[in-house]
């Protein structure tokens, strides 16, 4: 805990570190970050938007009750009539689909982001910390994954390992960890030369302790921003895979809804427009949060 707070102070405000403990800190780094984030109207809009999406994904299906795959009205009913967002070619309620789709969409995005965090952080941290041949090898692995177009690799992986939820999550995660790994490596390279790390090392701290409890907390601010943006990218990528019909057809996601209505989108624009807007707005909110975090975690940038 104290490591984390100190981490914020040191990485963002080196002047505090130089002055040692004599400077009076009115608020902690974390508090300052939260305050700055909340003072940024755009970031707050993003946070509110994502909160709405999460609330809908948790409680929406229970409140709505109906089955999104059920035929409830005339096929291809226009929106803003009997059904708020119209029905698709099988008479399924588009609004219900969007509400039900929120949970799998967010779950897949968050769990694949978790994979990118685990893989990206470990590879980046080891690469940056140990350097030498470890770094060289791991960076070659990273480049290898960057050379393969992500969608092609993901499609092939899903096709080989049977389409479905686990393979989708794995395919998204394994194709999106490289930028996080590179960022982690860069931060580790920078921070491992700082006095606080040298001091800890001199005090006999183990490598494990240095990596996870000394360097990582200090490297976190940019990594958190990158992880936030990765969630958005994973939502988009999942939507693309579901749209192409590579996800489980029994799990309704926004991408699947667009894919199912593909052959009817000229006649019924609403069947593809609204699920797409749901994706766009959700990812947009994530981007706004990312921007807000960027400003809040790098106060110096704001003055530029």
């Amino acid at each position, binding site marked *: 805990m104290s490591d984390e707070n100190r981490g914020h102070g040191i990485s963002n405000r080196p002047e505090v570190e130089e002055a040692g403990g004599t400077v009076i800190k009115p608020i902690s780094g974390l508090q300052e970050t939260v305050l700055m984030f909340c003072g940024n109207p755009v970031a707050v809009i993003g946070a509110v938007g994502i909160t709405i999406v999460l609330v809908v994904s948790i409680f929406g299906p229970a409140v709505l009750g109906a089955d999104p795959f059920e035929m409830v009205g005339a096929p291809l009913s226009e929106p803003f009539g009997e059904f708020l967002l119209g029905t698709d070619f099988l008479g399924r309620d588009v609004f219900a689909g969007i509400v039900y789709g929120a949970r799998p969409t967010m779950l897949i995005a968050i769990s694949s982001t978790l994979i990118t965090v685990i893989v990206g952080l470990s590879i980046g941290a080891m690469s940056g910390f140990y350097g030498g041949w470890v770094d060289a090898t791991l960076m070659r692995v990273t480049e290898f994954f960057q050379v*393969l177009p992500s969608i092609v690799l993901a*499609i092939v992986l899903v096709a080989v390992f049977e389409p479905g939820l686990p393979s989708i999550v794995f395919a998204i995660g394994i194709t999106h960890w490289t930028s996080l790994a590179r960022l982690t490596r860069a931060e580790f390279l920078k921070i491992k030369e700082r006095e606080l790390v040298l001091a800890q090392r001199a005090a006999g701290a183990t490598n494990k302790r240095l990596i996870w409890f000394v360097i990582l907390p200090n490297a976190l601010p940019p990594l958190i921003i990158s992880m936030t943006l990765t969630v958005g990218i994973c939502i988009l990528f999942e939507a693309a895979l579901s749209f192409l019909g590579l996800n489980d057809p029994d799990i309704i996601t926004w991408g699947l809804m667009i894919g199912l209505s593909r052959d009817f*989108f000229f006649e019924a624009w609403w069947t593809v427009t609204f699920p797409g807007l749901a994706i*766009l707005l959700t990812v*947009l909110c994530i*981007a706004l949060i990312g*921007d807000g975090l960027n400003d809040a975690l790098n106060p110096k940038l704001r003055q530029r």
Partner: protein
Amino acid sequence: MAESLLRRLLYGFLLLFTVVILNFLLLQAAPGDVVDAIVADTGGASEEVVARIRAEYGLDQPVYQQLLSYLQKMLAGDLGYSFHYDRPVLSLIVNHLPATIMLSLSAIIIAVIVGTLLGTVSALNPKGIVSHIVTVLSLLGYATPVFWLGMMALILFAYEFPIFPVFGLRSVPAPETLPGQVIDIIYHMILPSLTLSILFIASYSRISRAAMLDVMGSDYIRTARAKGLPEWVVVFKHGLKNAGLPIVTIAGLQLSHAFSGAVLVETIFSLPGIGPLLLESVTGRDYPVMLGILQGSALMVIAANIITDMIYRVLDPRIRGTV
């Protein structure tokens, strides 16, 4: 220069070699093998026939033996045979690659031009309207699903206002003269290329804005202004020329993304590219085609990276001498 090119080529070859090994592992992990695919495609066969085909493909050999023969085949440029299409995989890919390359390249070129202009203008006037447009564009470029954007473009510009064709790469019947055909293809490519380029315009405008802000503050710009040069000469000749280097690097790195985006855009606009081929191979469980595409796209990206690296060296005399 020659030495560094050699190193890059060697390294690229190593990457490609790894892709081949990954492909072999995927082939091993896949449920069913080539023979199952043939049997399924031809509608069943007796046990003896299956065993005979297996022996013919060397599938009864130990795994390391299979890997060796697989490597041998791939290094000789033989990507295998597609029983689904009844054609060699290589010829399938060669047939479908031009549309994808054309789409990716034209999208990147549009994005570089538009993005650099937007970025330059917003760097010259950081609080102006263009600056805000760049900010909004970069948010939308990040948040919009490209396949959905393509559908929206089609609804608007091909259905509601039928300005552009709905699908395909050529009109039916195609124009007879060669210039007519070229114009016809360009006409079909406009909407897909613009759709794909939206994804990248934002990143180029941000990069070029940052690079221009950096460059325009330097001493040689002040000198150029002090000489009394017109502002546009200062901006374009002295400023942009130096700010252009990061843009070249990014363009090379983004080819992999552009390729991914192109696969999606092609399926929306029904372009005869790699995307539709890949999807059909997934439905048909046509592993040789899938893995061939993986290998082919890796080769393209590696080649593009080497080419941009060389362009960078030509443009930037400072690193020309270094390895």
